[in-house]
C-alpha cells in the first residue's frame, strides 16, 4: 500500500463522501481512520462561522479606526501648517545653537542638529497621535480652542479652524446660530481669528467636529506641543480637563488632562464618568478632576471624579444643544450610503415620524444627533425610561418638527450660545 495510492484514495473519499469501492480492506481501514478527524474539522466549520460572525463587527470597527487614524496621520492637513510653525521655532532655536557650535567643531554641530531633528519630530508625532486619538470618527467630543481661521457661511454652515490643546481641528457650526458675547447676541458668522471657544459635537470621518454646543471662552491658555499618554496612574492624580471624548459605541472615554505641573496627558477613562462630565451643566472642559481606578462591568478603568471648576471655560455653562450641522460621514456611512440622505439639521415639518432604529446618544441631552447604521439623525428618545445621557443606547424616533427660539442672554450668567432646539425639551410632545 503506497503513500501515493492512499493520497489518491483519500482525495476521492473526501470528494465523494464515501470510501471508493476499489479500496482494499487494509486501505479501507486506514482511510476510515483518516476520515474521522477530517469529518470532525468539517463539522466544526459551522461553529467557526458563528464565531467569525459574532466577532466581525468588533473587529471591523477596530480596523476602521485603524484605517481612519492612519489616513489622518498621512493627510497633509491644515494643522500641519501650525505644527510647521512649531518646527520653525525649534529650527530657529537650534539654528542659533548651530551658529555658536560652529566655533566648537563640526562634531558638536552634528550632534545638536540630530537632537533638533529628533525633538521637532518627536513633538510633531506626539501632537498628531493625540489628535488622531481624540478625534476618532463617530465619537462625541468637547474641547476648547482658539479660532485660527473662520470661513464664510456656506450652505448653512460656518466652518472655523480651532487651535486646540491636541492640535488643530475644523469645526462646523450652524450658520443660523448666535453666541452671547457679554449680553450681545453675536452671529456665529462673526467669529474671527483669536476668539476662544468651547465646542462639543460629533466627530466626522475626516475628524472635523459638527458642533451642537458652543460657547465663547477665554482666548488664552491653549498650549501647543507635547501631549503624553498616561500609562500608569499615579496616586492622587489631579488635574484640569482640557478635552473629553466618548467613543461612538459609548463604550469608552478619553480625556486630555493637565496636571498641576502643567504637563498634559491623554488618559483613557470610563465611559460612565466621561458621560457624567459631558452631562453636567457647566462645560466639561475646565473641570478639576481626580483620577481613580474603578471597577466596571468591562473591567477596571480610570474614573474621573469632579472636584470643581477651574477656569473660565468651565464657569460658563454650555447651553442646551442646538441643531448641529450634519457630521461629515463616518467610514461606515461612506461605504453604505443609506437613506435618508443626510441633509441639513431637522427642518420644520409636520408630525414626528416613528423610525425603528438603535444607536448611541452622543449628545448630553435626549434630542440630538445619534449615529446609527443610517446617517446621523436628529432624534428624540421615545421610551420614557431610556436614560438620555451620553453613551447610552436608546430607542429612537425621528423628530421632524423643530421650532427655534433664541435664548435670551441671562444678565447674571454669561450664557453663551445660540438658538435653542425646542425639540430638545419636549421631543415626545409633538
Amino acid at each position: 500500500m503506497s503513500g501515493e495510492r492512499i493520497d489518491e484514495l483519500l482525495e476521492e473519499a473526501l470528494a465523494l463522501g464515501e470510501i471508493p469501492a476499489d479500496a482494499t480492506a487494509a486501505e479501507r481501514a486506514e482511510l476510515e481512520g483518516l476520515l474521522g478527524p477530517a469529518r470532525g474539522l468539517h463539522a466544526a466549520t459551522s461553529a467557526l462561522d458563528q464565531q467569525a460572525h459574532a466577532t466581525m463587527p468588533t473587529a471591523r470597527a477596530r480596523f476602521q479606526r485603524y484605517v481612519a487614524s492612519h489616513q489622518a496621520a498621512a493627510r497633509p492637513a491644515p494643522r500641519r501648517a501650525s505644527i510647521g510653525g512649531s518646527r520653525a521655532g525649534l529650527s530657529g532655536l537650534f539654528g542659533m545653537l548651530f551658529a555658536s557650535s560652529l566655533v566648537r567643531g563640526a562634531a558638536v554641530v552634528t550632534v545638536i542638529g540630530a537632537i533638533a531633528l529628533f525633538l521637532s519630530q518627536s513633538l510633531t508625532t506626539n501632537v498628531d497621535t493625540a489628535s488622531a486619538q481624540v478625534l476618532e470618527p463617530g465619537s462625541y467630543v468637547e474641547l476648547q480652542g482658539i479660532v485660527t481661521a473662520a470661513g464664510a457661511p456656506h450652505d448653512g454652515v460656518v466652518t472655523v479652524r480651532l487651535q486646540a490643546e491636541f492640535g488643530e481641528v475644523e469645526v462646523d457650526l450652524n450658520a443660523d446660530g448666535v453666541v452671547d458675547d457679554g449680553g450681545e447676541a453675536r452671529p456665529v458668522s462673526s467669529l474671527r481669528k483669536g476668539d476662544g471657544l468651547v465646542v462639543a459635537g460629533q466627530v466626522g470621518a475626516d475628524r472635523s467636529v459638527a458642533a451642537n454646543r458652543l460657547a465663547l471662552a477665554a482666548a488664552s491658555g491653549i498650549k501647543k506641543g507635547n501631549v503624553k499618554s498616561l500609562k500608569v496612574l499615579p496616586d492622587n492624580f489631579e488635574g484640569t480637563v482640557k478635552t473629553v471624548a466618548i467613543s461612538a459605541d459609548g463604550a469608552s472615554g478619553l480625556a486630555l488632562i493637565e496636571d498641576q505641573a502643567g504637563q498634559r496627558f491623554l488618559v483613557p477613562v470610563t465611559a460612565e464618568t466621561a458621560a457624567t462630565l459631558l452631562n453636567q451643566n457647566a462645560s466639561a472642559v475646565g473641570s478639576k478632576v481626580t483620577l481613580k481606578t474603578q471597577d466596571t462591568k468591562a473591567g477596571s478603568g480610570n474614573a474621573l471624579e469632579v472636584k470643581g471648576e477651574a477656569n473660565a471655560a468651565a464657569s460658563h455653562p454650555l447651553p442646551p444643544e442646538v441643531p448641529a450641522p450634519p457630521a461629515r460621514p463616518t467610514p461606515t456611512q461612506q461605504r453604505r450610503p443609506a437613506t435618508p440622505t443626510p441633509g441639513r439639521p431637522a427642518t420644520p415639518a409636520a408630525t414626528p415620524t416613528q423610525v425603528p432604529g438603535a444607536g448611541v446618544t452622543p449628545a448630553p441631552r435626549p434630542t440630538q444627533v445619534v449615529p446609527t447604521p443610517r446617517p446621523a439623525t436628529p432624534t428624540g428618545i421615545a421610551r420614557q425610561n431610556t436614560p438620555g445621557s451620553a453613551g447610552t443606547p436608546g430607542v429612537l424616533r425621528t423628530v421632524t418638527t423643530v421650532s427655534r427660539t433664541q435664548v435670551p442672554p441671562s444678565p447674571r450668567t454669561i450664557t453663551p450660545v445660540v438658538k435653542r432646539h425646542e425639540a430638545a425639551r419636549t421631543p415626545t410632545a409633538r
Partner: protein
Amino acid sequence: MSDSEVAPDGPSAAAAEALARRAVAREADAWAEIFDSHYRAVFSFVRYKLRGVDEAEDIASQVFEIAYSRADRFDYRGVPIEGWLIGIARNLVRDHIKKIGRRGYEEEIDDTTAPSVPDNAIAIDLHNDLVAAMKDLTEDQQTVLSLRFLLDKSVADTAALMARSEDAVKNLQRRALAAMQRSLTGSDYTRELSP
C-alpha cells in the same frame, strides 16, 4: 476571496487586480471590501491555533492592520490577497505561540481545553479534543488542514497558498490526519462522527 481568485483569470482576475491596486493605494473602500471578504477566512485560519475567541479576533484584526500598513509592499501580480493575508496570519500566530511558549505552553493548552465563557454564551462548541489534537501537529500540518477543511480550499488552491506541489499537499494532509487520529485515539471521537 473565492477559490477562483486564487488562480484568477478572465473578468474575476481583472476585478481582483483592480481591487488589489486600490488596496495598494490604501483606498478605504477597497480595504472595507477586503475585510468583509476575508475576515471569516483569516479568523477561521487562526482560531484553531489559539486558545480562545478573543485571542483569535485580536490576531485576525492585527492581520488586517499589518496588511494595511504594508499595502505599498504588496505585489498583487504574484500573490492573491487571501494568500497574502494568510501568510501574515501564519507569521503572527507563530510569533504569538513563541510568546506563549516563553510563558508556559502547557498552561495555554489547559486553558484551551476549558470552554471559555464567551463560547458558552453563544452556544458554540469547537470540539476541544480537536483543538488539542491540532496543537500537536507541525505548523505546516496545521496549515494544510485549516486550508483544506476549515476554509474548504481545493488541493490546487492549498498548494498555491502554501507554495507547494499538489502531491506535497496531499502527502502533508494524509500525515496530518494520521497524526490527529493518533492524538484522538482512546477517545470515542471517531465513533461519534462516523455515520
